[in-house]
């Protein structure tokens, strides 16, 4: 028994984080980012040919509230790798430039030849996760 009210949205967010090895919470979509920080983070992942799942936080203010409560991180975007918050645009940029991001993603730090895009796994409906290269 629990006296916590059930929180389906937070459960869905947690589920998305655990089921997608690379997951970006962003403003807008990879095709149409609605914020410069989200756009830059998408561009870095795309430049590494890294498949990732993305969740747009804009359609419902509660997504962002629940996400920040869960991750203890106030801003968007938020990049999760293997269920762990890696950071927002600033940290991802630093890690990209130092090669740590490539390492965290299990990529060669010097992108050799473009890798064949792997189909990313993601059940989609409730949070409209989009899988994009």
């Amino acid at each position: 028994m629990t006296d916590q009210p059930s929180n389906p949205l937070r459960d869905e967010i947690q589920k998305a984080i655990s089921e997608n090895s690379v997951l970006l919470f962003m403003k807008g979509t990879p095709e149409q980012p609605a914020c410069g920080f989200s756009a830059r983070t998408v561009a870095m992942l795309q430049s590494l040919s890294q498949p990732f799942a993305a969740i747009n936080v804009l359609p419902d203010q509660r997504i962002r509230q629940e996400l920040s409560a869960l991750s203890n991180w106030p801003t968007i975007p938020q990049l999760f790798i293997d269920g762990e918050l890696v950071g927002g645009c600033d940290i991802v940029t630093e890690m990209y430039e130092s090669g740590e991001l490539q390492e965290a993603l299990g990529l060669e730090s010097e992108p050799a030849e473009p890798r064949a895009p792997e189909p990313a796994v993601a059940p989609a409906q409730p949070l409209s996760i989009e899988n994009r290269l």
Partner: protein
Amino acid sequence: MRLATLGDVSATPEELKQRIEAEISGASAEVTGDGHHFNAVVSAPAFEGLSRIAQHRLVYDVFGAEVGDRIHALSIQTKPE
């Protein structure tokens, strides 16, 4: 009759700098910004041994719910020192 006016409530780089330096022990901060979007470069001995995430959280924690609201965007670089 005199109209009361509210003071300017927008944040300033100087305010952010002072609050970071007051809250994080031994920190020195350089903050730039336009009143809504800010960039802070913070060095502090307190960052030593912490992950980047943890270092940035220390800075965000200075402002709590103001980040994303009154402080629309706060870009951070941290340096242990």
